[in-house]
């Protein structure tokens, strides 16, 4: 981007500045630390100049928003056309209460729904299962059958909202229920908009809510790709996630690398199942973390977009524009929230929001200040939403597209992260792909090492966490926290009892038997899952059948 003569001049003047001006300053006033690093422990130089990005070519490496390689954004007008979707993850206890919270949020200006399910639901167990004891309704809503789903979306027009469901192992079943509810509302599947997370590989890596073994899980995922490409074309069938990988302790480059490696595995699986890459790739979406180091995060998103575009084009030969575009949802980093002086978290979330927006996210969830302690109160959630609204309407960062482009530091860091991620992906390729790398524990080990290093840095005060290892106070002020009604478990159990006595149990049995038979073949299971849920088979019953046929994933732990 600069001519060689100019660069030479800059090299000379830089050296001059560095040795003299800086040298003099240092002898009077040393810098605060020996080494300066990003949030991911990457070395940061004192100053960045055109020299650091001298190899760059504007058209080749940056291009224009909405054009390959999409470094500057997937859309030509970005937030000038439309703000990102403000989508707050919510859902707790019962479907009735969650329904109320959704209506509240929609009233307050939220533009999309995001459903959080409780752990038993995420792992395919009904509320009356032994392992569900103590867990029902705690981290999200308990959905035991289509009946609960109907209550969850009661009065919410599914043709008017876009719903994101954070569900992975039993995604097929919850999606089937959503389609069934819509049908009852008179809304045909082709009108439905939304996302299911449906990313099982990251469950094995970092999140832990898996059910079936890898191969069988991939089968369900490709079934969903295929079914939706025909019947539910507006639905985003997977949200390939880096958020949890980062939360588990990875660096920014690892977040990109492992997420994209998972993405490659899904594309491989779908192609192997006979799908054409351009048929499903446009509906792939991603989910990233928004961490503290604002500049590193912005660079990360840009690197991810460029790298994915290149991978889709060069590795998979995708032709459609939409196949090359990395669209993503972001959540601010839960692991950065402190239990100490919780109001500080509002500030952290604001910085992380800026990072996501300057990075070009398509939708955003902002955490509430009290989430290191419990699920958020209504007040805390409102502040979190307002944070997004203030950045959107008052900060000015949305008035032009990709404003930080051209910054010597940002472009240099974007290049570095892309390179580091590519190296990791190559390593993973050599191990046989993401599923094999997971089996061998390679990805998990990398993450654990980063996590441990981080913890030691905090304990040695090499990394400051305000309120935790510096600027502490005597914590006396108690905050109002949300309490989950312990009777939820009892309520859900009663509901199940009631359901089982009022539904047509013969039809349920029949549907489950058909599903079992089909699971043993190669057929797409979606239609049969839909049939079963329509008869009010419970989630546990449907997953139980699949557990029988597929077996369960056995954890391998590498410490």
């Amino acid at each position, binding site marked *: 981007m600069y001519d060689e003569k100019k660069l030479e001049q800059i090299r000379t003047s830089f050296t001059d500045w560095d040795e003299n001006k800086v040298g003099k300053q240092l002898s009077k006033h040393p810098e605060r630390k020996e080494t300066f690093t990003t949030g991911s422990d990457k070395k940061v130089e004192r100053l960045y100049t055109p020299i650091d990005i001298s190899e760059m070519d504007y058209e080749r490496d940056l291009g224009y928003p909405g054009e390959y390689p999409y470094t500057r954004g997937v859309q030509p007008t970005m937030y000038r056309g439309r703000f990102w979707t403000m989508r707050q993850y919510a859902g707790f206890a019962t479907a009735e209460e969650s329904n109320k919270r959704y209506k509240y949020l929609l009233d307050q200006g939220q533009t999309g729904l995001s459903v959080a399910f409780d752990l038993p639901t995420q792992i395919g167990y009904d509320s009356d299962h032994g392992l569900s004891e103590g867990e029902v309704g705690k981290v999200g809503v308990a959905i035991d059958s289509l009946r609960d789903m109907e209550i969850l979306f009661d009065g919410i027009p599914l043709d008017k909202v876009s719903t994101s469901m954070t569900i992975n192992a039993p995604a097929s079943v919850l999606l089937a229920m959503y389609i069934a509810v819509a049908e009852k509302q008179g809304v045909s599947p082709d009108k439905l908009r939304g996302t299911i997370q449906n990313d099982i590989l990251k469950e094995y890596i970092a999140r832990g809510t898996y059910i079936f073994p890898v191969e069988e899980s991939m089968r369900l995922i490709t079934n969903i790709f295929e079914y939706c490409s025909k019947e539910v074309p507006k639905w985003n069938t997977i949200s390939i996630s880096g958020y949890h990988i980062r939360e588990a302790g990875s660096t920014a480059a690892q977040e990109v690398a492992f997420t994209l490696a998972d993405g490659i595995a899904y594309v491989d699986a779908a192609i192997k199942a006979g799908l054409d890459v351009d048929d499903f790739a446009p509906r792939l979406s991603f989910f990233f973390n928004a961490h503290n180091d604002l500049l590193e995060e912005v660079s990360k998103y840009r690197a991810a977009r460029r790298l994915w575009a290149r991978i889709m084009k060069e590795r998979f030969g995708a032709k459609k524009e939409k196949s090359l575009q990395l669209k993503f949802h972001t959540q601010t980093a839960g692991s950065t929230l402190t239990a100490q002086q919780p109001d500080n978290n509002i500030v952290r979330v604001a910085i992380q929001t800026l990072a996501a927006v300057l990075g070009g996210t398509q939708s955003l969830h902002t955490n509430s200040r009290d989430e290191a302690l419990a699920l958020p109160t209504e007040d805390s959630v409102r502040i979190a939403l307002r944070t997004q609204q203030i950045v959107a309407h008052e900060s000015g960062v949305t008035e032009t597209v990709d404003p930080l482009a051209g910054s010597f530091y940002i472009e240099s860091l974007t290049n570095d992260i892309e390179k580091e991620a590519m190296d990791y992906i190559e390593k993973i390729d050599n191990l046989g792909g993401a599923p094999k790398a997971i089996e061998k*524990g390679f990805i998990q080990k990398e993450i654990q090492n980063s996590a441990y290093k981080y913890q030691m840095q905090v304990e040695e005060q090499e990394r400051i966490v305000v309120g935790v290892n510096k600027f502490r106070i005597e914590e006396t002020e108690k905050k109002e926290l949300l309490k989950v009604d312990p009777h939820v478990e009892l309520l859900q159990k009663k509901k199940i009892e009631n359901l089982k006595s009022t539904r047509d149990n013969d039809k349920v049995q029949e549907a489950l038997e058909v599903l079992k038979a089909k699971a043993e073949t190669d057929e797409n299971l979606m239609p049969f899952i839909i049939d079963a849920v329509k008869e009010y088979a419970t989630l546990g019953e449907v997953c139980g059948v699949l557990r029988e046929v597929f077996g369960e994933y056995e954890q*391998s*732990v590498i410490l």
Partner: protein
Amino acid sequence: MNIEERLLQGDKRACARLISLLENNDQKAVDIIKRQYHKTGNAYVIGVTGSPGSGKSTLTDRLTKELRAEGKKVGILAVDPTSPFSGGAILGDRIRMSDLALDKDVFIRSMGTRGYLGGISKATWGAVKALDIYGCDYIFIETVGVGQSEVDIVKMADTVLMVMIPNMGDDIQAIKAGIMEIADVFAINKSDLDGADKTKLEIEMNLDLNEKSDYRPPVEKVSAIKNEDIDTLLQKVRDHENYLKTTGKLHERRRRNLKVEIVQLVEEELLKLIMQKALEGDLLEELSHQVEKRIQDPYTAKERIISLIRE
């Protein structure tokens, strides 16, 4: 009731406590073993060895389940390396045996090597006896598994089961020397991977070259995670057990191992005595200073220490 009484009644806690005392070199524990030693010799000991990542724990879990189906009582000692720097260890083999945790006739104990080289820990010897007295029919010892330093498992086990995975490539060449001699049964785990047949062939070829007496170690392909061919593998282990028992070789083998154990115990005790003397009044410190300054040589230093024992 004390530990000994409870142990004889099949109390898990007592057995667990006894093993801890043995690990901590507690004389009370040794006395219990002494008194109950006549009860040992019933348990059949299977050493499970192989490289890290070969699936030893999962395989042990599956073999145990097969034995449980026959009503046998099983003990499992899972050994993992102790960090030479901190003296601590992460013992994670239980994870792959989660189901067995609640089985009343299965006892699983994780042990750190605690500085002992050879793939097992010094207390493993004692732990095996404890499990024997407790009433186990079979005892699995899962070693650390780093290849050539596995040799100690031979001194403890009746059958040594070597677990390998396909495509070890150059690794096979490197560890071939040690392995071929000590393994009684070979299991090629993760048999669904490419190269399983090739690996089996390689091992068979090596066995051809190392014709060892009238027993030829079988090479079985299995998939622990898929629970395939576990029964066949167990049968091969049983075959070896029967071979040893019917030919009288079991007694021979155990006598040889016990001889080694006795020598080991004597060596340990003598070393302790010598070191106690040598450490009295900083003698060792003094000597090492002198040797470093070339006032004395190491051989004369040795003679001085030894002479103290003779006194």
